């Protein structure tokens, strides 16, 4: 695979020109990427093909075209690779009659992992108090944690999580993110698909954005934003003399629009770096106090919105 | 002081008439009909009810066709009459009720949408009555339609007015008999569906109970245990049907046990009432 932000050098999961269609509906189209140690966030609007992609990565779905490998093997041909890979699916894939402990122990037995890990996994997801209660009585967040524990107990090198933060409260979310972060620091490959963009932005080392079944962007969030050259940056500038500053800004080539709101200017620019050099000079020129210069759309949410609306 | 304003981005509240409880009931009834018949659903959900109805009506159409070709109604040429026709459609109704009962009661409970009904001007009894009414409409319609076809076909060939004048009681009798079959099967099927999470499982258990009761009670009545004739659940509607139609299509187990048809009717109504009360209790607990 040639080098690009969509691929990594030390890939553990490789997706090569993968497509998947269900009858007339194309869910994933000619998608190539790879995943390696660290946390990769997989983003996309509803119906973008993220879950389909993850299920192909796991081997639950066969690609209509292309290939997927985990640790160099096709998981559909060699189930032995599942000793080192685990999936936390989005759906409620639990056994309601089992207790959390029994469920995690079941995962351990099926994967051949040592039973001593059961308690560790339950403690890791903070389910000790409810470990011996049937899962049927669990809240959604608790079920999520039970699923995560069942995945962690096998000690996977590749951990795939489809919307793992659904139903969790902020404290549980922070706790789970710590777990994923720790795994990533240990050199494991963690792939997280999520709609909670702020959290993905916090934890992911890189993101892959999927829109309409195609890879829309890949890499660092800031770098993705910079790659969107056709979309002007929006910058917030807090300055004393807004009117004179606005007039000066409009005379430059890099600024396409300025909106004034009290002591704040909202500027659209095609060249953030250039604007960053010009603004302090202009402020000095009009003898105004510059108190803030902040890009407004370099967040993952903004990037995500641009990617979705570009289609 | 901070100010706020909400802009109307397109949401419009309902400004039409509020239909109230009767409207909600009617909507529930129509939804029940759709579920049972597979309407507004994928083709495969329609196949079974349509095939069953076609198989039920086909012999009637065939016999009417023969009568038309022969240009006369010949009782001998129609292989069986109204009473015997129920032998065919009764079994189909049994299977149909087994599958439809689960379709009506289980999805709402399992998918958690009972709470949606509870937030409307509907009581548990409304919900159950309307579900039962939609099942009754389809099952009784399905059972009675062939008789209507047979009746009209014979009337057409035999001099419409005179045939109708002489034989119109057949219409209400076959309708009544269809109702008896429904009352004999539906309450138990609905009770089992109300306690199951899977429609298929409920159907198998219901059919198992009905069929095993028939086989077991036949042997016991034969051995002299006449009172067990009351437990021949799948035999009572046929016995009552013969009573209504004044025919003798079959040696029914309750009949062999020495019971009068009225006893079978009482068993049907009692079991129906008991199952109904249990379904209400179960549904209230689940809601």
């Amino acid at each position, binding site marked *: 695979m040639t080098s690009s932000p969509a691929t990594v050098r030390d890939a553990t999961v490789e997706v090569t020109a993968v497509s998947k269609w269900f009858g007339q509906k194309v869910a994933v189209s000619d998608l190539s990427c790879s995943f390696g140690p660290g946390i990769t966030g997989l983003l996309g609007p509803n119906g973008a093909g993220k879950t389909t992609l993850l299920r192909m990565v796991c081997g639950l779905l*066969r690609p209509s075209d292309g290939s997927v490998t985990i640790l160099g093997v096709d998981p559909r041909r060699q*189930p032995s690779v599942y000793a080192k890979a685990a999936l936390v699916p989005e759906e409620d894939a639990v056994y309601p009659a089992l207790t959390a402990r029994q469920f995690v122990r079941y995962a351990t037995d099926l994967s051949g992992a040592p039973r001593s890990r059961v308690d560790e996994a339950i403690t890791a997801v903070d389910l000790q108090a409810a470990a011996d209660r049937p899962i049927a009585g669990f809240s959604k967040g608790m079920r999520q944690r039970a699923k995560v524990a069942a995945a962690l107990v096998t000690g996977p090198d590749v951990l795939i999580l489809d919307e793992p933060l659904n139903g969790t409260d902020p404290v549980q979310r922070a706790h789970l993110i710590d777990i994923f972060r720790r795994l990533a620091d240990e050199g494991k490959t963690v792939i997280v698909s999520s709609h909670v963009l702020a959290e993905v932005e916090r934890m992911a080392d890189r993101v892959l954005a999927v829109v309409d079944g195609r890879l829309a962007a890949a890499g660092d969030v800031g770098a993705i934003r910079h790659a969107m050259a056709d979309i002007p940056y929006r910058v917030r500038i807090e300055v004393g003399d807004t009117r004179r500053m606005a007039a000066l800004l409009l005379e430059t080539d890099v600024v396409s629009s300025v909106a004034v709101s009290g002591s704040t200017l909202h500027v659209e620019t095609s060249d953030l770096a250039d604007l960053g050099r010009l603004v302090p000079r202009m402020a000095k020129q009009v003898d105004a106090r510059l108190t803030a210069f902040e890009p407004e759309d370099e967040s993952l949410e903004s990037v995500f919105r641009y990617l979705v609306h570009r289609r | 002081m901070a100010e706020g304003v909400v802009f109307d981005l397109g949401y419009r509240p309902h400004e039409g008439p509020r239909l109230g409880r009767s409207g909600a009931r009617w909507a529930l009834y129509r939804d029940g009909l759709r579920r049972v018949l597979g309407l507004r659903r994928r083709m495969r959900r329609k196949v079974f009810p349509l095939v069953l109805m076609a198989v039920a009506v086909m012999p009637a159409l065939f016999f009417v066709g023969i009568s038309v070709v022969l240009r006369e109604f010949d009782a001998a040429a129609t292989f069986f009459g109204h009473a015997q026709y129920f032998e065919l459609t009764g079994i189909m109704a049994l299977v149909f009720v087994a599958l439809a009962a689960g379709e009506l009661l289980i999805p709402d409970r399992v998918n958690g949408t009972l709470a949606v009904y509870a937030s409307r001007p509907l009581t548990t009894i409304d919900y159950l009555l309307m579900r039962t009414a939609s099942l009754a409409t389809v099952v009784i319609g399905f059972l009675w339609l062939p008789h209507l076809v047979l009746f009209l076909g014979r009337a057409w060939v035999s001099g419409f007015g005179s045939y109708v004048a002489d034989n119109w009681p057949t219409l209400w009798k076959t309708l009544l008999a269809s109702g008896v079959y429904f009352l004999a099967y539906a309450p138990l099927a609905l009770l089992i569906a109300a306690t199951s999470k899977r429609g298929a499982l409920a159907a198998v258990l219901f059919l198992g109970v009905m*069929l*095993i009761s028939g086989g077991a009670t036949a042997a016991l009545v034969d051995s002299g245990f006449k009172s067990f004739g009351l437990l021949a659940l799948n035999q009572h509607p046929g016995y009552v049907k013969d009573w209504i139609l004044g025919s003798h299509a079959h040696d029914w187990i309750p009949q062999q046990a020495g019971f009068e048809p009225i006893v079978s009717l009482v068993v049907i109504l009692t079991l129906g009432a008991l199952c109904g009360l249990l379904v209400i209790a179960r549904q209230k607990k689940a809601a």
Partner: protein
Amino acid sequence: MRGFAAIVKVSLRQALGGKRVIVLGLLGLVPTLVMWLSSRNLTAGAAARRFYDAPFGILFLMVLPVCALVIGSGTMGDERRDGTLSFLLLRPMRRWVIVTAKFVAAWVASTTIVAASGLLAAITLGARSGDYAATGPIVLAVAISSAVYVAVFMLLGYLTSRAVLIGLVYVFIWESSITFAAAGLANVSLFRIGVTAYAALVPASRQPLNEVLGSLAPGAWGAMAKAVVITTLAVLALASLLRRRDALSE
């Protein structure tokens, strides 16, 4: 081995847990009840004939198929519908091992319920006639018929959500009616596989069973061989489907 045992254990708990096992167990008591009551005051010979009349028929034509259909069709079908199939498939275990474990659990569950029913009925026969020779063979016959039913319904349950409907048509129309019509058709009847084993081991049953069921070629080893072949084919077919098909929940 640990994984295999774990699947069998959890699947047995799923199959035998809940209200349905109570209902199936109660249905299973019917042959015994019928036998006990209907053979009162009969001679030993008459009691034996009565056994092969209704109780035996109820056991093999109704109780066994209903149990096998309920348990067998839900074995893989429920995992798929509940979304837990991915939990099973994403394990370092060969597909045929997973399927075999599920089959073993379903077979044990079905056989336990129906064999207990048959055993009680056979003990009742023994109490009435003084002959307990039927107790062992009936358990074997149930085990054999249960194996083939469960294997076939397990495959059907995975293939379609209408497995129960198809199973019902097969059991109550094909098995209970059509296969009685012609000797040739008896060869494609699953419940007869177990009954032929029974007839081979209980010679006294051959004549009454021939009268009730039509042609019956007794043979315990042949029956077991048929059961092994059918079961193996069903398990391999299902394992192949798991390997080749997409694991989509319903």
